[in-house]
């Protein structure tokens, strides 16, 4: 029976080509626009560490003085050198990392290549295990290198391509910021998005291409990059950053299970209370320990424009649907005579209804296919924009399936009212007027 409906539907759609095309285009534009903006939002609000982001936490507390204190003031997202090292050495979490971003000028050995700047990250050894960085060659450094301020580096795929044409460069040297660093590892392309572990260098920036032990970077005064916030007598004098009253480092911990989280939270409260007692801290004890996704949410990482665009395209989709309902109504009502004849010849209301809905579903399917094209076009236009955030926007399989399901459902919903209206017409009336 379905085959018969299909044939009738195709014949009817072919009869009024302009109307059919208009319906398909309306659905396609609506669905295409919505899928484009939803994909962008999906990418921007994605999980940077799928599977393990729930076990990565950022301890937050307030080391600032009383000046300008209000209970509602947000806690800093970074830590001072002193606090970072205290927490690092306490080793109360399974893993912990203290780090800061940088921008290091690299001087290639080849005199034909001019020096260039690479984004860098100066971190402690747990960085690699915690964030599961993928290694192509070599391995990360360990606590011993942190301790000895070893002049070693792990470089990213892009830098390895640029300096060593993608060869295994472990054991070779890279000269960065005037310091010769021995390469001990090379990463595969790796770009957690959002750049959750340090939002001060851009929420969706590309990943760092040069990783150096924090102790080494500080002893060699490799150029720092990122946000810095000082109070009291704090000044961003490079030589005294270790004692400055400034927050400028990121500190993250890895904890498994509620018990560990609760225990760490208790430890953190204790630490702050202790610092308060010693007079280093002045503000009342107020700590927080959000995981990655809560942290990103609280920092409003997703640009509000992306959300605005989703709402607008959904509104656009609704207008397209209303438009389709109207056109289907016109199309179905025009065939009231035909329906009357079919009903008089014994077709049940149900079967007429099903037949009309088949027609709607075909429109939906065609709209979905065309809408997919619109979405792909929209995404490729977005990727052409140089803004870093949108370059990752690709349609994944789930979105692809959703495009078809939503567009067919939308077309069915749009066909429901018109089909019902036509079915209600008394067949006798239609036949009489013929």
């Amino acid at each position: 029976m379905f085959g018969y409906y299909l044939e009738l539907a195709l014949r009817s759609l072919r009869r009024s080509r302009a109307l059919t095309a208009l319906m398909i285009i309306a659905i396609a534009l609506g669905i295409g626009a919505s899928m484009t903006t939803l994909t962008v939002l999906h990418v921007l609000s994605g999980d940077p560490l799928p599977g393990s982001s729930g076990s990565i936490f950022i301890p937050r507390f307030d080391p600032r003085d009383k000046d300008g204190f209000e209970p509602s003031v947000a806690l800093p997202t970074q830590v001072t050198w002193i606090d970072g090292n205290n927490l690092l050495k306490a080793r109360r979490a399974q893993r912990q990392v203290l780090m800061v971003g940088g921008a290091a000028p690299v001087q290639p050995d080849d005199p034909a290549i001019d020096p260039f700047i690479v984004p860098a990250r100066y971190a402690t050894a747990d960085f690699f295990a915690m964030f599961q960085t993928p290694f192509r060659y070599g391995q990360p450094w360990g606590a011993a290198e942190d301790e000895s301020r070893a002049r070693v580096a792990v470089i990213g795929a892009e830098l390895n391509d640029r300096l060593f044409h993608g060869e295994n460069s472990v054991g070779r040297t890279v000269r960065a910021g005037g310091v010769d660093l021995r390469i001990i590892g090379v990463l595969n392309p790796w770009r957690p998005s959002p750049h959750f572990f340090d939002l001060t260098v851009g929420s969706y920036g590309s990943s760092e291409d040069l990783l150096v032990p924090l102790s080494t970077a500080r002893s060699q005064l490799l150029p720092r990059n990122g946000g810095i916030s000082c109070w009291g007598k704090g000044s961003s004098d490079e030589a005294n950053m270790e004692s400055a009253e400034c927050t400028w480092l990121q500190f993250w911990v890895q904890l498994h299970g509620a018990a560990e989280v609760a225990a760490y939270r208790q430890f953190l409260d204790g630490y702050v209370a202790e610092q308060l007692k010693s007079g280093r801290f002045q503000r009342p004890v107020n700590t927080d320990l959000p995981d990655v996704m809560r942290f990103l949410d609280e920092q409003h990482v997703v640009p509000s424009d992306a959300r605005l665009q989703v709402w607008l395209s959904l509104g656009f989709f609704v207008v397209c649907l209303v438009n389709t309902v109207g056109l289907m109504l016109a199309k179905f009502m025009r065939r009231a005579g035909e329906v009357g004849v079919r009903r008089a010849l014994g077709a049940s209301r149900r079967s007429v209804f099903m037949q009309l809905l088949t027609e709607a579903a075909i429109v939906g399917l065609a709209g979905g296919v065309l809408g997919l094209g619109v979405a792909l076009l929209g995404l490729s236009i977005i990727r052409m924009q140089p803004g870093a955030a949108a370059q990752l926007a690709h349609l994944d399989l789930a979105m692809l399936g959703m495009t078809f399901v939503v567009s067919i459902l939308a077309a069915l919903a749009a066909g429901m009212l018109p089909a019902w209206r036509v079915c209600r017409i008394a067949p006798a009336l239609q036949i009489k007027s013929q």
Partner: protein
Amino acid sequence: MQIKPILSALRRHKAGTILIALQIALTLAIVCNALFIVHERLDRVNRPTGMNESNVVAVQNLYVGSPSTYVPLMKTDIQAIRSMPGVEDAYVTNAFPLRRGGWSTSIQTKPDGTKNGVQSALYFGDEHTLATLGVKLIAGRNFSASEVTAFERDQQPVPAQVIVTKALAEKLFPGESALGKTVYYVKGRPSIIIGIVEKLTVPWIDADFIDNVSIMPLFFNSSYQHFVVRAKQGQQDAVYKSIANTLYGVSRMRVLPERYGVRTFDMVRKDAYEADRGMAVLMSVVCGVLLAITAAGIVGLSSFWVGQRRKQIGVRRALGARRSDILSYFMTENFLIALSGVVVGVVLALGMNQWMFTQFEMERLSFTYVLVGVVILLGLGQAAVFAPALRASRVSPVEATRSV
């Protein structure tokens, strides 16, 4: 024109009438708000900086290697740039308008003032700064060459003289002249305001102290510098193309980043407002497509109505109705539907704006936009229905006698 028969006819087409009205209402709501967003963004994109932006080239420069001081390098470089044939003037600085990165601090008017001073961006420069930027000095004087000093990374930028913007001067000393007054960038260390410029904006595009700028006669001893260059009339492109070579000619121990390394000020502005411009384009496209779809929907449904009523039209024509009567019947019918649509649409538009006001910190929709939207949609309805209505008016009176 009699409206009553139209209304009673519409009552027999409730579903179609409501659908068109609803579509017009939703379109109006979205178009009003989208146009308003376009307007808001374009306002931002074209916001003046106070500079004379034509013929300006900005260079980002990072010195490589570890010299004991960068100040001589900076001075050599700026001399080399000033002696380029197409260059009128140039200076070296930490930041300039639309750079989207720079320094800011809070200024006090008393030596021991605590927090909550007036926030201001800090631009380092020299006696060439005002001429290079093309800003207008409205009171006081420019820096002299002897007032320009260097400061180190472990020092605070506290010059003896500063030039401030008019907006900042008025905030620091409301109701009186700020010229010659003393201000404090650092507790207990005075600076005298020697000049006031008409307008200059901060490097950030979202700052809430956008017009508060202090210009300081300082060289900042650091590897990271910006050169701002004013080219002679018509020489901008030549300077843009040759400045990297000039600098590399002085010394190769530097990096001019591939992105944002050398830019004309047009490019600086374009980069700064990229997201806003993209949003404005997107909203315009959405408006256009939405209006097209709504128009197509009206054409489709009206054509159907005309086809459905051919016989009735024939009867009316046979009974003496003129073509123009039929034409105006359909035009009026559409006008009535569109009118009810825009009434609902205005309410929807205001509701939507209210929601966006709370969710996205958008400004209140001005009534002009609602009015423009109403006119657009009523006009669109009339234009869309014209072709089907014209076809209806051409129905011959003979139709009345057919198929009876």
